């Protein structure tokens, strides 16, 4: 009856995600209920509709569970050292500014050991898209405390609970100079996709924080359920406040999560400013690299 009007399953389209993944490396290593794979779905869908030449997209990650994302994407990808994805990405981008360089890594990697590089790349407005997955813990190494672990949460190196104030990452990113700052949770799949698309199109240091469950370590040790319970929690306790003052979006243990696009502003990019400045100061003596010249020309045309 209802089947008459519609074709049956022979014309099933392939999973749109698979073209972007190294399917020869599946299944991945992430735990059941971990949201990293969810964010990869969003990332891939954003790439798919971004109009970018995928050959020119490079993903750089660090060490940690989220750091493994680079290895599963069928793009030029780099799994670098702990905390140093951003400077590697900086060198890659400046060698060939036509590349779209994305940093995809975890909270410990990017803001603990990598904190220094994070603030300087934001300060310089390096043209990178930074996707940070924040699970409030060091998952890969067995659940140690992170700068993003909320107060009172338990971790293997904070067995009595964490008493350190945790980072408010959007506030940090904004104050360091990021031109695009957004936070979502793994639950907000369509918002994440939209944000990633906007960040990819945006010139400068774009930062997206995605709050993500770690069922095996964070959730289990803190007795807050599994991945699913965390996702339900995100759905029920997050509040979308676009344009919120980033000072106010700090997170507490199992507290309200303010999500949204907080900052979207304009600043000259590092390489844009560099080109303009040298042109002004050196005039005819200025010889930009071939790649730099091509990229600025392309950017000006758009």
């Amino acid at each position, binding site marked *: 009856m209802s089947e008459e009007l519609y074709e049956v399953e022979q014309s099933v389209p392939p999973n749109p995600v698979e073209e972007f993944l*190294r399917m020869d*490396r599946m299944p991945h290593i992430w735990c059941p209920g971990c949201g990293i794979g969810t964010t990869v779905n969003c990332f891939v869908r954003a790439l798919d509709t971004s109009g970018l030449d995928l*050959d*020119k997209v*490079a993903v*750089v990650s660090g060490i940690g569970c989220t750091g493994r994302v*680079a*290895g599963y994407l*069928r*793009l*030029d*990808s*780099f*799994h*670098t*050292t702990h905390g*140093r994805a951003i*400077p*590697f*990405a*900086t*060198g*890659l*981008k*400046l*060698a*060939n500014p*036509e*590349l779209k360089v994305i940093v995809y890594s975890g909270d410990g990697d990017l803001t603990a050991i990598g904190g*220094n*590089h994070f603030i*300087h790349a934001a300060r310089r407005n390096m043209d990178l898209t930074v996707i940070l997955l924040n699970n409030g813990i060091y998952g890969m190494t067995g659940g140690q405390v992170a700068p993003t672990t909320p107060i009172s949460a338990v971790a293997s190196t904070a067995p009595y609970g964490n008493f350190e104030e945790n980072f408010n990452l959007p506030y940090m990113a904004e104050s360091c100079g990021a031109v695009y700052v957004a936070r979502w949770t793994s639950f907000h799949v369509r918002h994440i996709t939209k944000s990633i698309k906007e960040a990819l199109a945006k010139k400068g240091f774009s930062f997206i924080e995605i709050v993500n469950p770690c069922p095996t370590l964070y959730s289990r040790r803190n007795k807050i359920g599994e991945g699913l319970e965390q996702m339900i929690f995100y759905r029920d306790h997050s509040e979308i406040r676009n344009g919120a003052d980033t000072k106010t979006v700090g997170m507490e243990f199992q507290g309200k999560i303010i999500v949204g696009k907080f900052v979207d502003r304009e600043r000259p990019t590092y390489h844009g400013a*560099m080109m303009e400045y*040298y042109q002004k100061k*050196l005039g005819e*003596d*200025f*010889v*930009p*690299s*071939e*790649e*730099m010249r091509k990229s600025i020309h392309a950017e000006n045309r758009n």
Partner: protein
Amino acid sequence: MHADPIGVLTGAHFIDGDHACSEGAIAAGCRFVAGYPITPSTEVVERIAERFPKVGGVFLQMEDEIASSIAIQGAVWGGKKAMTVTSGPGFSLMMEHIGFAAMTETPCVYVNVQRAGPSTGLPTMPAQGDMMQARWGSHGDYGIIALSPNSPQECFDLTVKAFNLAEQCRVPVMMMMDECVGHMIERVVIPSAEDIKIVPRRYYEGPKEDYRPYEPERDLVPLMVKTGDGYRMHVTGLTHDELGYPSMTVNAQGKLVRRLVDKLKANAERIIEHKEDMVEGAEVVVVTYGISSRTAVPAIEQARKEGFKVGHVRLVTVWPFPERMIAELAGRIKAFVVPELNFGQIALEVERCAGGKARVHLVSHAGGTVHQPKEIYSAIRKSVKG
């Protein structure tokens, strides 16, 4: 292939070793430098900062040495030749990334203008205390190349050579200068661009589907590709297979790491360089490198005047160490004399390779200044007398 004329300041210059190193890098085609100021290396990046905008290069002063040492590797994968410059404390910070370059086979150049250590030490004074660190500083097994210039002219020439060796062998290459050579001002002749031989990056050019990023060629070195050319490669510091995929197995480890170590042995002939003087028929051979090679000369000449048969071997390539040459020499002579501005680093290698066939006299020095020739002369005398 020869140098791009845009970067080559052909002619005679009166410049110091640091500046000669900058010019060598530019002549070699280096177009990305990320650095951090540290005495006595800072002049290298200062000159680069001034010259690069005029020759198509990009220079960034990064927030620290750790960032510098990995940013250059990003630039290499983006298609550029890249270099960073530092001294002892920064060199220590860069060790993790030197290992990463070795593991991922990223060709790049690390310049260490050595100063007295350990720790903050004597920032403005020379030493040669990082020689073992250059070889073994990062964790795990891998191979590197280290060159040791003894004059500003060599700072130019060997920097060019460093880039060429890096591309040939896909390893990080250490330019082990020292404060004395770095700050010494001497005549440096930069040849014309056609006379400067450059080794271009060895890129894969076959069909994309057949590309295997870490499958070695006959000389144990795999071919590279550039990000953005559609090869969709994966590069990781984890132990990996020929596809570059993490392969956490004992087999993969054995295969990969053995090759990382062996590829330098396989290419030793074209890497190792040393200079010999009157080694034939010598009873004692003085083995030197860097600035100590120059302070040894008056001592050797004095000893020869007094009738002693003293030979002089100056290591230009310190790593890989010329094991065969030293072992062979040990069978023909009484003793080696090794003056170094440290408490015995390359002397240990000489001893190891001599295999007990000849004695090894170390002329040690804590650093801060160079040897007095008479110290080296007494060591020569003592070693002849036995």
